[in-house]
């Protein structure tokens, strides 16, 4: 019995093999030799591929329920979340696996950069890899649009505004991007086409090329100081070494890939179950102006850069920096394709890497905090700390009221709560004198708008009177000239206020 089955299977295999050559095709892939020292550093590429496969599978399933119409996308997502069995977890898996894929791609790329694995003869592998990075990010961006919530709507608005800044053709390009003169159904449809047809197709093709190049050139060895790449002799030497000390991909390297991928998948599965799906956040109705749009993690650093860049250079940077980055990444192995690979012998590369990573990490973190954004509801939701009201005069109390209801706390915090855009006001009375405070309130300055026209002089006086009481425990009022004088003749204050308006 057993023998018959075995014969049948063998026969079937033989039949298939003779007609398809599949075994002849797969065998060298499984048994190709990889360097013996290709250890845990080499698992991130496989993990990227695994998460991409998860994206394809979960994505196809989501497409069976998701309705890519601006009128119905939002409700179809809610339906998937709430009515479809396992729907919420499928969406969660798609979202968290996408984050994981970006992370794996970035780590993989970091390793290749730090180990200079892009050098001869693997230049093309790097270039294809760079294209795969862009595909991954484009998939993430278009995927965020699929949520068709307020983040998606205003995120598209930001994209459109950036494209709009291209000289001459900006407006036409924007209309092509949006599929019309505004963000609507046509916009969602074309991003859907990109997200489910164009980009995955491109990615699969590029992954194929990436893998074919692996088989052609072999995996690079761990870099050793002094072991230089010389295009004239490298291939022969590499093959020689691999023949002597290499091991078969299956099982020697594959087992490590499997352990790592399995572990990652368990973690992402847990995250999906524990954290749930991402969004949709708020109906994408542009008349709801209470939106607080934020991009997904992968794009927070851009969001921060937009907030912190000096406005004068912004357009230039927006239009010039991306092509430079693309050209640098693609051209890197052409600039440097020989010589040392060990990080210890390439201090310049390490510095570039550390600086880039620190910059991106810092910008992302700043984006999470986004201190530059006013806290829109601070003025209605955060009470004035009671300790700042104890023992205050009626005028000072009135000032506290004005501060509260003039939305000052949207940008300034009191007692640790409120906006971070402006300095906190907890001890502003120690930092600034009466006159300085009046000037700041009325004329603005730094990042502060001028309130000269928006507050009456009586209100300004009250605000300033209150702020001068906000001092470090036991500290005197600011001793900068003017402060003491004002204190001794407070009845003149309103006059000074009027005189200072000057507008």
């Amino acid at each position: 019995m057993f023998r018959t089955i075995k014969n049948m299977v063998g026969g079937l295999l033989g039949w298939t093999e003779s007609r398809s050559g599949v075994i002849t095709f797969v065998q060298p892939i499984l048994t190709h030799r990889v360097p013996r020292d290709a250890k845990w550093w080499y698992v991130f590429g496989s993990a990227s591929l695994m998460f991409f496969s998860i994206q394809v599978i979960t994505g196809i399933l989501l497409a069976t329920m998701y309705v890519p119409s601006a009128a119905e996308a939002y409700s179809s997502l809610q339906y998937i979340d709430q009515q479809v069995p396992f729907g919420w977890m499928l969406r969660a898996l798609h979202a968290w696996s996408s984050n994981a894929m970006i992370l794996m791609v970035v780590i993989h790329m970091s390793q290749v950069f730090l180990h200079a694995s892009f050098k001869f003869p693997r230049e093309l592998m790097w270039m294809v890899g760079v294209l795969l990075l862009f595909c991954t990010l484009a998939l993430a961006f278009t995927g965020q649009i699929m949520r068709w919530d307020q983040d998606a709507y205003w995120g598209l608005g930001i994209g459109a505004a950036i494209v709009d800044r291209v000289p001459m053709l900006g407006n036409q390009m924007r209309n092509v991007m949006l599929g019309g003169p505004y963000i609507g159904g046509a916009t969602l449809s074309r991003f859907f086409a990109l997200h489910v047809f164009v980009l995955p197709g491109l990615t699969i093709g590029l992954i194929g090329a990436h893998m074919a190049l692996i088989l052609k050139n072999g995996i690079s060895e761990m870099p050793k100081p002094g072991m230089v790449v010389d295009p004239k002799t490298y291939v022969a030497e590499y093959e020689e070494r691999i023949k002597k000390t290499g091991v078969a991909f299956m099982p020697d390297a594959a087992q490590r890939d499997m352990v790592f991928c399995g572990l990652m998948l368990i973690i992402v599965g847990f995250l999906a179950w524990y954290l749930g799906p991402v969004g949709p956040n708020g109906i994408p109705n542009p008349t709801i102006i209470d939106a607080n749009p934020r991009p997904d993690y992968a794009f927070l650093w851009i969001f921060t850069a937009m907030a912190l860049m000096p406005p004068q250079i912004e357009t230039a940077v927006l239009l010039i920096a991306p092509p430079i980055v693309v050209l640098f990444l693609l051209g890197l192995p052409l600039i440097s394709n020989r010589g040392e690979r060990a990080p210890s012998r390439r201090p310049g590369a390490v510095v570039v890497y550390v600086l880039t990573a620190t910059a991106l990490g810092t910008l992302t973190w700043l984006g999470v905090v986004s201190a530059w954004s006013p806290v829109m509801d601070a003025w209605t939701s955060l009470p004035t700390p009671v300790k700042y009201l104890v023992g205050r005069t009626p005028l000072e109390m009135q000032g506290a009221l004005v501060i509260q209801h003039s939305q000052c706390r949207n940008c300034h915090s009191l007692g640790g709560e409120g906006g971070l855009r402006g300095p906190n006001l907890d001890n502003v009375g120690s930092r600034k004198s009466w006159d300085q405070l009046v000037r700041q309130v009325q004329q603005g300055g730094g990042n502060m708008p001028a309130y000269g026209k928006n507050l009456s002089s009586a209100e300004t006086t009250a605000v300033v009177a209150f702020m001068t009481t906000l001092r470090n425990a036991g500290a005197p009022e600011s001793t900068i000239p003017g402060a003491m004088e004002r204190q001794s003749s407070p009845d003149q204050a309103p006059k000074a206020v009027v005189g200072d308006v000057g507008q």
Partner: protein
Amino acid sequence: MSCDCSNTPSDQPAQTPPPNARRGFMLKFGIGLMGIGGAIASIPIIGYAITPALKKYKNSWIDLGGTEDFPEGETRLGKFTNPNAAPTDGESAEQAVWVRSYKPAQFQVFAVNCAHLGCPVKWFQQSKLFMCPCHGGVYYEDGSHASGPPPRGLFEYKWKIVDGRLLIDAGRLPGLEQSV
């Protein structure tokens, strides 16, 4: 098809024209035909893809409501449906503008889209400021730039009053290249 296999030039060279000449002609002919066919097919493909760049999208005059809905000295949100809306737009066809009436029958109609990168600005009556939730852009009540990254004041729509109704010229997403 099947007979072709036994009739390859190498089998019976004598009965066929010189193989290279014929293959060369066929190849050129084929490339030519593919070229013509490709060109024909490209017309709708390219045209369809770049239509939004070629088409002139028009604004139209939209009724925001009676002028009494926008009392003097206040800034209120006006809502309308995009005149270019398609049936599949759903709620994204709804649009909003800030309407400020600063004198009797004198208005300023601002885009809600921040002049920086288009996030929705919010009006605060008490401090008389528009604040942007994205990168901290702030504007004064007359739409001029007060603080933050925006390179200019808020975009303004053209408006007119017809029979006591406030109309604005709208339809396209406001942007720097073509301010409203």
